[in-house]
């Protein structure tokens, strides 16, 4: 059977049209005006400490869950956590599969294996999680992002894997 490939979904166009039809306030998409300054890779991956930031609304049992209204807090998930202790909560994506297997949005088992294999030197002690779909770019820019950057610096993280949902 011939398999037809369709182009990637244009989410900005489709979500803008959907929100407009539903009478929602338009989402403030982030269009970067210029290329960002890139950090230089200072050492091989195999000698690097890897951090992770994921936006799927993931928390560990015992932590306070996220709210659904412009929540710009984050949670620190121990990098040796078990999948069974992790939860997902979010208003903007279908949680069914994430709640069956958190690894579809937070690949903790693959990351632990990658450390064992030596692709990276080590995992950071904690991974960080937050919500996505935050309406206020100002809050992300002035509160959430600086807090996460500071944690990554404090934890002497060399490179960060970002996992948006």
């Amino acid at each position, binding site marked *: 059977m011939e398999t037809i490939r369709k182009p990637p979904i244009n989410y*900005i166009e489709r979500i*803008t*049209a959907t929100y*407009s039809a539903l009478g929602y306030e338009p989402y403030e998409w982030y269009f970067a005006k210029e290329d960002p300054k890139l*950090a230089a890779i200072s050492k091989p991956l195999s000698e690097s400490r890897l951090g992770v930031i994921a936006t799927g609304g993931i928390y560990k049992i015992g932590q306070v*869950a996220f709210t659904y209204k412009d929540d710009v807090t984050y*949670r620190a998930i121990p990098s040796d956590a078990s999948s069974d202790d992790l939860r997902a909560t979010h*208003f903007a994506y279908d949680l069914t599969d994430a709640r069956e297997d958190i690894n579809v949005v937070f690949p903790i088992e693959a990351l632990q294996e990658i450390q064992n294999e030596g692709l990276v030197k080590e995992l950071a002690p904690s991974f960080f999680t937050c919500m996505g779909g935050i309406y206020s770019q100002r809050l992300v820019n002035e509160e959430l992002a600086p807090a996460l950057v500071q944690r990554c610096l404090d934890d002497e993280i060399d490179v*960060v894997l970002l996992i948006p949902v």
Partner: protein
Amino acid sequence: MGLIAHQLEYAGIPTVSISTARDITSAARTPRASFLDFPLGHTTGKTNDFSLAHSIVSQSLTLLERTTGIALEDLPHRWSETDNWKDDVFPAGGPRKIDEQDVIDDRLERWEEPQYQSEGDIEAAIRTHQGKECLICSGVDY
């Protein structure tokens, strides 16, 4: 996530992203990213498929060593035999052009209280914080 990536890079920490929304990642000029053409909610694969997650994560990480500038690389994995799943995602604005009155609101309400996955999680969070053993939460002022 583009905003967070840019601040990390500015602070001297290189980043690599995995994206399932090519246009959003491209608009944000995300520094280094791999694109996985899967439905939202599956940024690192499918349920109970460890080797898929491992492949997605390891291929994405090696972008850090394989690129020097802005990069958006397509991963080879496919969600299904056909790409028909794309027709039903936010169909307003899509190729099928549906009527405005047929647009469905499937977002959850923007509750201002914490939204737990299960009742048991609420009790666990109360226990953690009453016992002042909260070494695992952070970034939140309790």
